[in-house]
């Protein structure tokens, strides 16, 4: 929220397909804009320093840490959060796979894991390599279990749902 004497800016972001504007303190992160102003609390605050991945959202279809992005930098961009992927009545197929494979326990890192997982397909199709990619010249990357584990490593899970998360991502996007 903006207050007297504070540097502010007006931002307009397209969130889950809907254009939304707010007058914000320039210090506001995209994460806080989503959570505290737009009340999209599915995106979580895990460390506020880029160390855990819980706040992962899609910005122009690229997975991004919303805690490290100033909201002013998101002006004019397209943001997709967990709420935009599916709802309880119409789950995204990765959301369904997370339930089927028990890809979460407490559910706190889950939004970030799912947003990250959804982005993998595009990255692999674009040939973005990872540290375990053998053939750097391949036009596309096959998402093996090893590739998925490496690429999901920026999303910490402390309950230890890793097996289920990787199985879910593998079922939907794996090779």
């Amino acid at each position, binding site marked *: 929220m903006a207050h007297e004497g*504070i540097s502010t800016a007006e931002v307009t972001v397209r969130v889950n397909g809907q254009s939304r504007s707010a007058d914000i303190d320039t210090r506001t992160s995209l994460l806080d804009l989503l959570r505290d102003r737009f009340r999209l609390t599915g995106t979580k605050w895990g460390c506020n320093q880029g160390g855990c991945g819980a706040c992962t959202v899609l910005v122009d279809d690229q997975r991004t840490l919303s805690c490290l992005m*100033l909201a002013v930098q998101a002006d004019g961009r397209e943001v997709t959060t967990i709420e935009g992927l599916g709802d309880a009545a119409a789950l995204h197929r990765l959301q369904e796979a997370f339930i089927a494979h028990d890809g979460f326990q407490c559910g706190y890192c889950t939004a970030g894991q799912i947003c990250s997982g959804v982005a993998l397909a595009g990255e692999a199709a674009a040939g973005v390599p990872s540290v375990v990619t053998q053939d*750097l010249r391949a036009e596309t990357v096959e998402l093996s279990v090893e590739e998925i584990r490496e690429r999901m*490593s920026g999303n910490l899970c402390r309950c230890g749902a890793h097996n289920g998360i990787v199985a879910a991502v593998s079922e939907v996007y794996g090779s």
Partner: protein
Amino acid sequence: MREFTYTKAADAAEAVRLAAAGARYLGGGTNLVDLMREEIERPTALVDVSGLAQGITEHPDGSVEIGAATRNTAVAAHPRIRRDYPVLARAIVSGASGQIRNAATVGGNLLQRTRCPYFYDVAARCNKREPGSGCDARQGFHRTHAVLATSAHCIATHPSDMCVALVALDAQVHILGPAGARVVAVADLYRDPGETPHLETVLGPAELITAVRLPRAVDGAVSTYRKVRDRTSYAFALVSVAAVLRVVDATVADVRIALGGVASRPWRARVAERELLGAPAEPDTFKRAAEAEFRSARPLPDNAFKVSLAPRVVADVLKGLSG
């Protein structure tokens, strides 16, 4: 985080003008925003340069120019980079996480600051953060710290992976400042800590990195990047090695080696390179040369392992490239 004004620069010239008036450059924010939250960095004005030069240009002379605002992922994914500069692609994807690489810019990566925990904790003494306050790392936890070109004032490492590859590739940094444009080798961008560890680069006030230029790839050379860390992924390097090698008739015809995690800058292993050039491309040679690089090392009790680990990794990487 202190308050700041925010301006999105329309072009590099405007950015430099605003910086000359006191603004700090903001790229992807993956390091600066975190440091501002800790109030280690306290700019009162930010000029956003993340929308400026993005893109990779292939020049007729075989060199490749990467706009400073190009995201790390875009560089690693570029077909030309993957084909001709595998060491760079592999270094980039060894760093941070997919999300961070999507946001981090090349210019910002060059200027990212150390992860020394005492630098990060404003309650600790740190000459880099607060000149003259002392260095708590020297007598504290320093297992991850530098062993080469350290000083009594600072033993921090440069955390980047990408920059290690750029140093091995003899890349150049294009800079625009109030006095005009200039070019500096990436290897010469950084200063050793000496008595002024807070002065990390040779950039002058308001100077902006606009591009990085990779010289034409060495014909017939192979290259790779190897990062050794405390967990399998998403961790800073204990030791990393970027190497470019060309072997002709079982002899080292060309070699460039740069190291991460061992110095306050991406470290070009010139001593090892000198020993290797023209020498037989075999494991013993690699090992001796790599060890020679570390003769000047000044380790502390907890990071002494790097002095034996790093040469072993260098030798192993060269063995892999030559085999």
